[in-house]
Each structure stands twice: as structure tokens, then as C-alpha cells.
């Protein structure tokens, strides 16, 4: 254990990037993530790297494209409206197979929205905010310590798969200070990058490009990318499972709301109630296997997983993570949802009360303000169809298109 220091989320993620070997940062100011470029501006020169306050978000992401192409560990950061501007660049990074880390400290939207915390960019991050059939590894950390750890992981994954990686934080996470132990971050050295455009002295020139005008060639490239994404799905899922062995109601949340759900779970356990939690740390690849474990089979079949009666999803959005949970659960259990938007944080008391009701009196759930949905479980005969559909939707089938079982 190293020394605990107090750091703001924004500063911690910037320091973690430097620790991970990030030597190029370009950004453009926007609340609530300004401490990231501020910290980089102060720190990057001494670290021997380059900091650029670009003329726009679009310029910044394209500078990152250039730096990544030249082999640097490169990063940009912004908040929701600014991240929208970067989408073209992210698609190009994916298409050209360039490693880069993008940090989004989400604020409320759509449009200019507001500067308080929200999670409305989940779809944009996990389903491809830019054009084309690409995927971006997306982390959804929930503490300042975890911001540090996933940032280091993000640079490593980006390099290993030559793919953009997003750290999807939120305003509260960026602004808050918490104790951090920087020594907990496991920094791995960057791999050799023989593909990088480094001047071509004594070798054939490398070309970095995403333009394939012949459809046959372009499809081949797309297949290659899809194979890579399947590898990432297989190897890079990060998840925290809390009391999943005997949980009857399982909370699901990422980022700041995950803290509220986690606290509620502990309080319910104190009261002898069987609450649990699946906390996705990677949002893509999504930890579907954690759900499969607890919903597989029917209630009649004995098994640890079959105690789960329902899921409870909490988000600072109208239900985006909810859709991935629906795909994973595939109609086998009811899913309850509680969401706030516009920069409003869910109330800890409401989260606790709703989860308690789910455990003790499910009929009374949904009485609190905020957006509350119930996605009912399907009839058993429909489940088989839904499960097959979900497997297809989350891409678990093999590349030959013959379909395949859930992992």
C-alpha cells in the first residue's frame, strides 16, 4: 500500500494517464472536466510530453489521431457536448485501428443541457457514437480510486487491441475528492508499435488509413475488426459482483449511482435482507455472463443463481444501461428501473426504499418520484426466443454466422 492522498477525480485521472505513459494530450475547455486539461497543462511538460489546448474539440481529437499514429500514448477529454463533436474522430481512430483514450465526464443533455452530473451518453459510448460498425471499450468507474485504475487499464487495452477506449465518468466523479492510493494502479509498459508512422528510416513506409473503396477489401477489414471485438468481449470484461451467491434482488448501476446502490445493498444486508449487486466496470464489453450466472435455468431447478427474483437498475438517464440489462436477462426475470435526469442525482433514501420494497413488498415499488419502469418477465415459452435473440444481439454468435450458445 502506498500513501493515501486526497485527489479530485479529474486530477486523479490526469495523473493516472501520465503514470500510464500518456505523453500527448489535446483538449478544449468545458465544465465539468476542466481540471483534466489544467492538470495536464501543469504536469505534461515536466513529464517530457506535449500538451495542446486546441482550437476546438474536433481539432483535439484529430491531434490525438496524429499522435497515436506516431506511436504515442495519447489522450483527450471533454464533457458530453464536446464528446459529441469528437465522434467523427473516434470513428476514424476505430477505422484506422489507432489506440487512444478519451475521457468523458458526463453532464446533462441533450444539447448544451446543464453542467451537473448525468449519464445520458451511455448509448453514444457503448453503441458507437460515430458512424460505421465499430466498438469502443468503455469503462464506467464509480470512485476516484477506480478512475485511476481504469485509466491505466485503458491505455493498456487501447495499445493491445489498437482501439479507442473511453472512460465514461460523470460530473460528480470528476469534481469530487476522495483518498487515492496511486501505487494500486498497475502500469504496464507500452508494447512496441512497428505499425506507427515514425519516419520510415531504413524500412518501408507505414500507412495509417481508414479508406477502403473496394467493398470486398472494406468488408475484409470489417470482419477483422469484428474478430477483434469478439476477442475483447472474451478477455476484457471487468465487473464487480456483490453478494451474488445468495442475492434475491440484484441492483445494477455504474458510475456515481453505483455508489448509492452499493450503500443501499450494505444497509439491506445489515437488516438481514438478501440484496446484491452487479456493477459493470466495463460497459462495453458488457458483463452479460454475470447475469447469465444468476438467471440461467428455471426457478424449479436448484442452483445458486435461481434465488434472484428481480433486478433493480438505477441510472442518471432515462434507461440506457437498462437496455443492456434487458438483453442479458432476456425476459427471465422482471427488471425495475429508477432514473433521474437533467443533472439530478437519485436520492439515496429513494434507492434504499425501492430496493427494500423489492425484497419485501414488490407490489408497492415505483411510488417515488423520478422515472420508474417495470420490465416484466416473459412467459417461459417466450424466454427461449428472447434468449436466442439476446445472444444474437450481443454478438455471441461466431463469425460464421451459425449462431452460438451464450458464453
Amino acid at each position, binding site marked *: 500500500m502506498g500513501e493515501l492522498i486526497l485527489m479530485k477525480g479529474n486530477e486523479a485521472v490526469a495523473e493516472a494517464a501520465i503514470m500510464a505513459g500518456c505523453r500527448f494530450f489535446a483538449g478544449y475547455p468545458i465544465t465539468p472536466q476542466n481540471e483534466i486539461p489544467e492538470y495536464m497543462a501543469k504536469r505534461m511538460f515536466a513529464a517530457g510530453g506535449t500538451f495542446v489546448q486546441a482550437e476546438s474539440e474536433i481539432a483535439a481529437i484529430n491531434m490525438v489521431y496524429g499522435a497515436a499514429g506516431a506511436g504515442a500514448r495519447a489522450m483527450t477529454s471533454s464533457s458530453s457536448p464536446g464528446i459529441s463533436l469528437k465522434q467523427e474522430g473516434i470513428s476514424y481512430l476505430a477505422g484506422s485501428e489507432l489506440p487512444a483514450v478519451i475521457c468523458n465526464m458526463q453532464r446533462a443533455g441533450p444539447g448544451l443541457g446543464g453542467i451537473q452530473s448525468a449519464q445520458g451518453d451511455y448509448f453514444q459510448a457503448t453503441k458507437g457514437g460515430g458512424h460505421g460498425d465499430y466498438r469502443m471499450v468503455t469503462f464506467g468507474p464509480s470512485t476516484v480510486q477506480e478512475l485511476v485504475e481504469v485509466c491505466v487499464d485503458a491505455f493498456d487495452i487501447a495499445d493491445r487491441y489498437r482501439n479507442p477506449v473511453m472512460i465514461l465518468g460523470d460530473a460528480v466523479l470528476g469534481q469530487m*475528492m476522495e483518498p487515492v492510493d496511486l501505487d494500486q494502479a498497475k502500469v504496464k509498459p507500452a508494447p512496441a508499435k512497428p505499425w506507427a508512422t515514425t519516419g520510415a528510416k531504413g524500412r518501408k513506409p507505414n500507412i495509417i488509413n481508414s479508406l477502403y473503396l473496394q467493398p470486398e477489401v472494406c468488408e475484409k477489414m470489417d470482419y477483422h475488426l469484428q474478430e477483434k471485438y469478439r476477442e475483447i468481449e472474451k478477455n476484457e470484461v471487468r465487473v464487480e459482483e456483490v453478494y451474488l451467491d445468495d442475492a434475491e434482488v440484484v441492483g445494477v448501476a455504474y458510475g456515481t449511482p453505483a455508489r448509492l446502490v452499493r450503500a443501499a445493498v450494505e444497509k439491506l444486508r445489515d437488516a438481514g435482507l438478501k440484496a446484491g449487486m452487479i456493477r459493470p466496470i466495463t460497459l462495453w464489453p458488457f458483463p452479460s455472463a454475470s447475469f447469465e450466472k444468476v438467471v440461467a435455468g428455471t426457478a424449479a431447478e436448484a442452483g445458486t443463481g435461481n434465488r434472484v427474483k428481480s433486478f433493480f437498475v438505477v441510472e442518471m438517464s432515462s434507461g440506457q444501461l437498462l437496455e443492456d440489462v434487458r438483453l442479458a436477462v432476456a425476459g427471465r426475470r422482471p427488471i425495475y428501473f429508477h432514473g433521474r435526469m437533467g443533472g439530478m442525482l437519485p436520492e439515496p433514501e429513494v434507492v434504499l426504499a425501492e430496493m427494500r420494497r423489492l425484497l419485501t413488498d414488490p407490489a408497492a415499488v415505483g411510488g417515488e418520484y423520478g422515472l420508474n419502469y417495470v420490465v416484466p418477465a416473459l412467459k417461459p415459452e417466450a424466454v427461449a426466443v428472447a434468449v436466442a435473440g439476446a445472444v444474437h444481439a450481443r454478438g455471441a454468435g461466431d463469425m460464421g454466422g451459425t449462431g452460438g450458445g451464450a458464453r
Partner: protein
Amino acid sequence: MDHEIMMAGFGGQGIMSIGQLLTYAAMREGKKVSYVPAYGPEMRGGTANCTVIVSDRYVGSPLTSAPTGMIVMSPESMAKFQPVVRRGGCLVVNTSLIDEKASRRDIEVIEVPANKLATELGSDRVASMVALGVLAGYTGAVGIDHLAASLKKVLPSHRHNLIPVNEKALEAGAAIGREARERAAVKV
């Protein structure tokens, strides 16, 4: 026990500094702790506030809508935050700048002429430190020794000459807070 503490005043009163000092002290004491400064439109009006959660186990929400402990250093913050203090919680009121009498009867109100006491101790600038001492003395959220020991971390090095007067301010406030705690215990 979880302490959900907020402090509010106007820019320049050292609100963020006492919030960070409390956070450092809690960390030093081995507690779980979080600090969130207000950075939105609420600070554009010239008021400043921050939230510190101190827990023995786990900090869930780093924000609170009903603080168990509240410091108000200015009339505006008194008007805004008196109503939100959790029933049974405490409100530290800086009577040097706030004329309004607290109307809540379901919370412990501790009136302290923080600026006056600070001036008597040698520097008007440690008024918020007096108030933090009161809150810590009353709630026991962190030890005064840990607050004092954390001053070096929070004050910039060119202000380290003010550490002794800050320590005196914390001690003076803590004595008032502890006294209020004893009075409250007798009432119960």
C-alpha cells in the same frame, strides 16, 4: 455512523479550505470520506459551499439533500441551508455576520460569533476555522488533533506561518462545540 456535512458562505471565507481540511483529517483518522465542491450556478452568485461525507464503512452518495451537520457563515447561506438540515442534526451559525435567529426547533443550533472570536485570537481570517472546530467538537466526526495535523496539507506553504492561529481557532471552536454537546445531552 455517517456524518453528512455541508458548509456554506461567500467566496473568500475559506469554505472550501475547511471542507478540505475536514476531509484530510477524516482520511488521516482512517475513515472513508468524500468531498464535493459546488461548482455550478450556485457558486456564480458569490456563495460557496461544499459537502463532506465521513463514514466508518463506505461513502455511498457523495452529496446529501439533508446534512446532519451544517455550517453557515453568511446571511445568504443561512437562508438557503437552515431548512435542509436533517432533523436532529446541528447548525453552526456565524452570528458575527448573521442577524437572523434560527427558527428550527428540531435541530441543535449553535450560535458562534466566529469573526469576533477569530479577531480576538489574532486573525479575522480564521473565522471559518472556529466554525469547523465547533462542528467537529459537537459531532465528533473527526478529532481536533487530526484537523490540526492536517493544516499543513491544506494551507499553501506561504500560509504555514498562520498554522498556530488556525490551531487556536480550531481549539476555541471545539470547546464551544463540546460544551453544546454536553448541554444537548443534558436536555435529552
